[in-house]
């Protein structure tokens, strides 16, 4: 009996803790969503209007038609897609190399790859700005995407290498002894087995690249090429043309894709983050 009520108390305590945590983490998002649906007088009311009625969906129409946000979203999607494609390509090859070969300095090489993860993108962006300026590569998606790829590569390579390591060598061995080339082993055997891992790597690379700010901020100054992160800062700094309810609506539009991906795929994201974290 005492056991049961202690368990009940624990559950009540847990629910209380969850309520506090959820309110703390979701309140800012709730508030911005609320702001995005207000009329101008409601913005300044005290006490604040929590649930604006009727919700002003026209704020969203205004933002979608009067700011380049659709363009920014499209640019982000394009950059993210290309980044994920090339990052996966390069990382898969490298992960295969690290997983399936034994060679001298293998451990230090793996460590070296990880070290780049720790370098601030601000530090590398400045020499790259000078270099790209000299070769007229500023405002060029090819050069910008190369840097995006480089920034996500260390993590994705480590993650995929870890995934390949879980597949026993005997699988490759059997195929190679039968005359398959390494390339055939990778494409026909390993990739299909590793599809879940590759999907997870793709999700992580997408979230990381969607959030990327420093690189496009420094290497792009043509407004029509901005991804949504840089575009929003640009909108914010022109605050005479965009007021709080419009800025809120723009923020909601910009984070909606990430939140949707996150809520739908969080199981995979959590497992990827934790496996990466535990291994280093």
């Amino acid at each position, binding site marked *: 009996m005492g056991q049961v009520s202690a368990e009940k108390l624990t*559950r009540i305590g*847990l629910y209380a*803790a969850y309520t506090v*945590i*959820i309110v*703390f*983490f979701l309140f*800012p998002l709730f*508030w*911005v969503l609320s702001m995005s649906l207000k009329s101008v007088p409601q913005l*300044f009311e*005290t006490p*604040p209007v929590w649930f604006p009625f009727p919700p002003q969906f026209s704020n969203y129409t205004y933002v979608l038609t009067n700011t380049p946000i659709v363009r920014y979203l499209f640019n982000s999607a394009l950059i993210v897609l290309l980044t994920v494609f090339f990052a996966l390509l*390069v990382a898969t*090859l*490298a992960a295969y190399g*690290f997983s*399936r*070969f034994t*060679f001298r300095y293998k451990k230090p*090489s793996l460590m070296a*790859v990880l*070290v780049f993860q720790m370098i*601030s993108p*601000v*530090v*590398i*962006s*400045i*020499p790259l700005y*000078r*270099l790209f300026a000299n070769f007229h590569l500023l405002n060029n998606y090819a050069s910008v995407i190369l840097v995006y*790829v480089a*920034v996500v590569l260390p993590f994705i*390579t480590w993650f995929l290498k870890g995934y390949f390591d879980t597949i026993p060598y005997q699988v490759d061995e059997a195929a*190679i002894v039968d*005359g398959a080339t*390494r390339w055939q082993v990778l494409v026909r055997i390993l990739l299909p087995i590793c599809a879940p891992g590759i999907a997870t790597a793709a999700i992580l690379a997408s*979230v990381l690249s*969607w*959030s*990327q*700010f*420093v690189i496009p901020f*420094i290497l792009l100054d043509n407004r029509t090429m901005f991804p949504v*992160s840089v575009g929003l800062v640009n909108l914010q700094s022109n605050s005479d043309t965009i007021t*709080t309810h419009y800025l*809120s609506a723009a*923020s909601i539009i910009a984070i909606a894709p*990430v*939140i949707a*991906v*996150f*809520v739908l795929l*969080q199981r995979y994201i*959590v497992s990827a983050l*934790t*496996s990466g*974290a*535990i291994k280093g």
Partner: protein
Amino acid sequence: MTVKAKPSRRSWTEVVTGSPLLWLLPLVVILVATFVYPIIEIIRLSFTDAGLTGSDYSYTLGSYRRLLGSPYFFDMLKATVIFVAVSVVFQMFLGFLIALVVDQGARRGMRASVVTRTAVLSAWAIPGVIIGIIWGILYQESAGGVLNYLVGLTGFGSIPFLSDPAAALASVTFANIWRGTAFSMILVYAGIQTLPADVLEAARVDGASAFQRLTRIVLPLLAPILLINLVIVSIDTFNTFDMVLALTGGGPGRSTEVVALSIYNQIFQQFHLGQGAATAVLLLLINTVMTIIYLRLDREEVA
């Protein structure tokens, strides 16, 4: 089996000892071009009087002399250290608590634990600049500023969240804790899953209280993960740029100009490339030292 001519059977050892060079080459080329070259270049630039573009310059120690002689330098260091230290301590502490609470619920099959985990993680997934914009809206000091309204309910006067230098640094740090807690939570949560269930159960049967199990068993076992967590979170916080840029731009004055933002402002706002490069070398040194610590820890954990 196969009818076509079979290549001579190779032994497995022969195959593994082959060269991985071709497989690794694309990775190496990209990393050298976008990391190794810029790192060498930024160190070189810090010893020159070069401008942002153009190629006329000479070598000098002037950038470092001016940087160290600048009254802003120590303000920047102070702001950075406060921002990083307070962020890291609270992120780790909150992340640890939330991980424990979420784990307890998950073990009881409570769906609310998944909702909680998702709520915390969504804060982490939002791009940093948008976090800056969102908190800028929350911190508004004019009518409509919701945090000041809530503070007013408790009987305090209004707080100059972003217009007072000290308050602004606290506000930026608070928003950063909101953003970064998720990462610590996930690491600790993963660590808890690896704890030996039988040991904890044995301790419980032997009458150890929940608090004793936490301090005597859970914490010591999690120590390596907590240390790695500490280093990664510190590096991330030292490198923070986007959130602060969108929230305060480094102001008021330069009170929230943390090191990464200071590099950007010196180079792209004040056009002091050499001085900005010297600051970048400082950040690079911080990154390097932290990474060495990280690799040491990692090796010890593996061993």
